[in-house]
């Protein structure tokens, strides 16, 4: 089959690889009908998250049709079923899964010893991500083996196009969880850093959860225009002072709730000198992340407020203003998304026409053009916001 394979920094190729096979009774194989490129894939493209090996298949936003099931899938899935695959692989049985903390499933990381060394404890296995999270082959491919398939799936009905359902795999629940973690109240201002696909979903989620005011921050006009269409007031951090504007919009009090949808690769620019220092340290491996957005959120958040982090951080962040964080009595909530905790509700909202996540798609191309699209998405060329690949 064809698959997008990681060969090194900025080197993803569309290779011919062997087809996946059932390895365990709880496996299923799907024929992929649609998959997408995520902002997290860019961190891997840049080799900023350790633990990738040449030959790893990329991709964790995937859906398709079940073509083969193992003997242990136990009637939960059958040939011909249409499923969206959550990016977190879950067993459905462990302590954490039972609590709905799916992204920290205790069972599915097949290289748990690596994660335990680095993080203290293991997290769930993830598709198309690093070997710290199991090194499972990803779904930017014609076929995908879904381990623990009896639990790791979202069954979706016929009659709704792929484009509306695909993002149940990751970015829609991710934006949703980021907003839910804020405990939004009807008087709240929610500020969202980053208007990439995840930020766009967080904006819509904050609106659906009843925020009084949603403010979106980015520097790309096309993404800001999309944020505004979704109901956000926008701030362009290249031309305006984020802190000043946020205070202006909240009578000097700061937003109650702040969401990071930018992550470890904050834009590097001279007017934000900390980003230059972070970038320099990153190069000589003194720091793994560029946490500019975290610092800014802590500084500007209203005392007693909540900071919700959807953006991915990989290792160590320096110069975190813990003094402000502590004295302002802030709360921080984070996490890879517990996808299946939210998808029943979100699927219902799609079916009822409350939201149509396909608004974010700007490019749809054949899988073989995937490698070019990584560059287009990374460079923000052609007003690209979200790329869908068709195998």
């Amino acid at each position, binding site marked *: *089959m*064809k*698959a997008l*394979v990681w060969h090194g*920094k*900025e*080197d*993803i*190729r*569309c*290779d*011919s*690889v*062997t087809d*996946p*096979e059932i390895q365990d009774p709880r496996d299923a194989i799907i024929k992929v009908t649609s998959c997408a490129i995520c902002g997290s894939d860019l961190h891997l493209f*840049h080799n900023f998250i350790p633990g990738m*090996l*040449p*030959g790893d*298949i990329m991709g964790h936003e995937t859906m398709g049709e079940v073509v083969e099931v193992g003997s242990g899938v136990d009637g939960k899935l059958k040939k011909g079923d249409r499923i969206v695959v959550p990016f977190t692989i879950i067993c459905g049985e462990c302590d954490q899964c039972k609590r709905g903390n799916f992204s920290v499933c205790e069972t599915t990381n*097949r290289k748990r010893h690596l994660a335990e060394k680095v993080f203290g404890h293991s997290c769930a296995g993830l598709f198309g991500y690093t070997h710290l999270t199991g*090194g499972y*082959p990803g779904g930017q*491919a014609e076929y995908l083996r879904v381990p623990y398939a009896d639990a790791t799936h979202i069954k979706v009905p016929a009659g709704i196009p792929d484009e509306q359902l695909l993002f149940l795999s990751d970015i829609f629940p991710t934006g949703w969880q980021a907003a839910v973690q804020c405990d939004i109240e*009807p008087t709240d201002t929610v500020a969202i850093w980053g208007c990439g696909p995840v930020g*766009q979903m967080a904006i*819509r989620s904050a*609106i*659906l959860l*009843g*925020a009084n005011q949603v403010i979106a921050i980015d520097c790309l*006009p*096309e993404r800001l*225009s*999309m944020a*505004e*269409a*979704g*109901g956000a007031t926008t701030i362009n951090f*290249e031309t305006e002072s984020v802190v000043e504007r946020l205070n202006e919009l909240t009578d000097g009090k700061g937003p109650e709730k702040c969401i990071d949808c930018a992550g470890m690769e904050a834009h590097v620019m001279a007017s934000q000198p900390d980003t230059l220092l972070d*970038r320099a340290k990153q*190069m*000589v491996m003194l720091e793994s992340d560029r946490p500019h957005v975290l610092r800014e959120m802590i500084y500007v958040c209203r005392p007693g407020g909540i900071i919700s982090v959807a953006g991915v951080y990989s290792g160590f962040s320096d110069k975190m203003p813990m003094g402000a964080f502590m004295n302002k009595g802030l709360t921080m909530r984070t996490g890879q998304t517990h996808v299946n905790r939210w998808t029943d509700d979100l699927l219902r909202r799609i079916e009822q*026409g*409350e*939201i*149509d*996540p396909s*608004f*974010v798609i*700007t490019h749809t191309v054949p899988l073989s053009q995937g*490698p*070019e699209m990584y*560059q287009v998405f990374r*460079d*923000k*060329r*052609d*007003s690209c916001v979200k790329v869908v690949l068709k195998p």
Partner: protein
Amino acid sequence: MFHFSNIVRTKGDPKILEGGPSLKRPEDQLARALGWFSIGLGAVEFLAPRRITATLGMEGHETLVRAFGVREILAGIMSLSVDKNAGLWARVGGDGLDAAALLSGLTSDNPKKSNIALALLMVGGIAMLDYRAAQDTRPRRPPREARRKLYPNRSGFPKGLENARSGAKQIAAHPMPERS
């Protein structure tokens, strides 16, 4: 075909049968070669500055050579990173400094001045490559003033933004149980 990466595959995972084309361009390879060259030269300058000053007849300038070594290493690391363009421009600047330092040693009483001339020639050659690579690897991000498509109609709410807002307000209007 043999693919090295297949050796480390977990048993059962798909293996590469035939590799597809890489998007690495010749200029990316050149940038990489220059990056490693920079680190190698920097290491020599940093670790053995006396050998260099002796070869050039410029004894007494070891500290400067060491500092240049550090500069070379940092520019090299940058040239190997995703910000290779900045690294290559740093190298172009560094070539200028190298040339200036060498010229200062090109005095009539320096017995090693032929070595300096040779070194200058090498710096000139490398500088041309650095400049080429820096030109060819300019980031492909569109400039800030470039025209872009905007998406003012993509609300994502099939029933409209106002409907989405008021739906949420209705839910909020139902009184929640008092918090204690």
